[in-house]
């Protein structure tokens, strides 16, 4: 223990009677949360692992010419234009690795703070429970966007190095400039993040149910997987449009000209519906929860 104590120092501890509370900028805690999420080594490692995929896929395609129709979507286009590496990578990552990253971040959110006891420290500051939930959700979404964006950026760079770059031929046969294609890549990253936001909302809710973050993470990841399995069972095709993961891979419609907004809209609405259900549930649960850790 450091014993270099200077307790004798006369520092006022008691509030001046007239110190009227002033509302300072509410985003300070959000910035703190961002730093917490983005500086965390585990999260950095997750992003790094995700970034390996565009590199691996790029090298694999570069060294072994594929026949059209083989492998994941957009793979055959990669050799024509490096930018398609972004879309191939996201298609490969979206079913499992991206939801896993989001499940880890969202499952950790409330349960992690509850588990190590920092939730009680925040609440007595005081930070209202509503604010804790919103700040944590926002932090999770930023992390999801960071994951997606990192994959996209690495995809662009690897594509530039290994493959031709220039005008790109879209899925609809139209040709657009490299700059426009980059714009599409950004739109795809945003769409994918919105898709993950629904899962993140579920993760927030699960996270309010426990003080064991790993449990919340596993449950959330499991839900994403179950949804995808259900989406592949034709006998229950009636519920497919309502499944969380159903619209995830629709981002291909962003690679048409004109953009297939209708499918995208449906997809975004599906995720918004999940957010609208699970965030209030998370709020209600957290609001009445006894913080006894």
């Amino acid at each position: 223990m450091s014993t270099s104590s200077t307790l004798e120092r006369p520092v006022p501890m008691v509030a001046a009677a007239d110190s009227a509370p002033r509302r300072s900028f509410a985003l300070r805690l959000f910035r703190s949360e961002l730093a917490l999420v983005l500086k965390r080594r585990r999260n950095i490692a997750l992003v790094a692992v995700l970034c390996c995929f565009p590199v691996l896929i790029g090298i694999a395609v570069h060294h072994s010419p594929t026949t059209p129709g083989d492998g994941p979507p957009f793979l055959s286009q990669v050799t024509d234009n490096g930018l398609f590496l972004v879309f191939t990578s996201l298609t490969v990552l979206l079913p499992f690795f991206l939801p896993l990253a989001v499940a880890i971040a969202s499952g950790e959110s409330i349960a992690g703070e509850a588990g190590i006891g920092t939730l009680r420290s925040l609440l007595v500051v005081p930070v209202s429970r509503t604010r804790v939930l919103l700040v944590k959700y926002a932090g999770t979404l930023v992390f999801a966007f960071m994951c997606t964006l990192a994959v996209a950026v690495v995809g662009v760079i690897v594509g530039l190095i290994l493959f031709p770059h220039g005008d790109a031929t879209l899925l609809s046969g139209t040709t657009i400039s490299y700059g426009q294609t980059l714009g599409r890549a950004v739109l795809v990253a945003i769409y994918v993040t919105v898709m993950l936001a629904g899962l993140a909302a579920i993760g927030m809710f699960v996270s309010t149910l426990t003080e064991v973050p790993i449990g919340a993470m596993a449950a959330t990841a499991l839900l994403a997987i179950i949804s995808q399995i259900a989406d592949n069972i034709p006998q229950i095709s009636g519920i497919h449009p309502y499944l969380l993961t159903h619209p995830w891979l629709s981002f291909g419609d962003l690679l048409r000209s004109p953009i297939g907004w209708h499918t995208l809209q449906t997809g975004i609405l599906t995720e918004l519906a999940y957010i609208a259900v699970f965030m209030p549930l998370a709020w209600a649960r957290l609001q009445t929860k006894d913080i006894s850790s």
Partner: protein
Amino acid sequence: MTASTEATGSVGVAEAPPSGPPRAAAAIRTTGLTKRFPGGQVAVNAIDLEVPRGAVYGFLGPNGSGKTTTIRMLLGLVGSTAGEHELLGDPMPGSAGTVLPRVGALVEGPAFHPYLSGRDNLMRLDSGDRTVPARGAGERVGTALERVGLTAAAGKRYRKYSLGMRQRLGLAAALLRPRELLVLDEPTNGLDPQGTREVRTLLREAAGEGATVFVSSHLLSEIEQVCTDVGVMSHGRLVFQGSLPDLRRAAGLRVRVETSQPALAAEVLARLGTGAPGTRPDGVVAELDGVASDRVTAELVAAGVDVHQLVVERPDLEELFVALTGEGFDVDE
């Protein structure tokens, strides 16, 4: 064992403390505050706390007696099953947003992010406080760290901190800004004797500046020196509340006789109507229970007991504490 010798004849439980200042002056007040956990276990059973402003209130009780649950309810972390409570005159948990910035709290030991430094942990808590300007954050954190003697270790990751340093950081969080009320749950846990002394000094300073201090402990001796008031919890109930002198007075006088004839002496004492005498090889001890000590002396001598020494004493607070809360190693359910 040191015991104070008393000459006065006044014995028994003291009368209720004079209710001086208006009741609105209480820093903490609870009425019938109760916590029943879903399993049906009653952790806190209808307690009426009254902590006067400016007091250093020792909240005592063995582990598991309901102290921490009470503190969690006071701060709004845990909902109460029944009863009401207020902090600094405002009802809780409704007024948490306006009251808690004026309350510094350490609940059940320090809890921080292990991979952030001590300073970054405090910065994070400071960033959550919307009632302070962002500008002074570094200064507030620096001052708090200095107060608890952690300046040198401020940049170290929390996970590298020793238990004592962690406890200090917890105190620094409670002292992040000037407070009107400090609620500290076992602040001396894990501290070495010097650290314990420093905490006592901090409490005295805070009280000296006008803050009310509510400090829990399972060790009476650790906080006895700084307390003005005490509340004693046992099995979820508040079994004593009052000033420290009140507590002392609540401890009945007892007589200790040193003699070579303990059996005979015990017989005499029993005849006089004292509490059940306990015999030892070198004498006998009994609660006086209102029997005048000079009568004891006279009767003993008349009965031919060779009295080597006769002492009228008050059990020390530790013994009284044990008497109030029950002996033994059993943890309350």
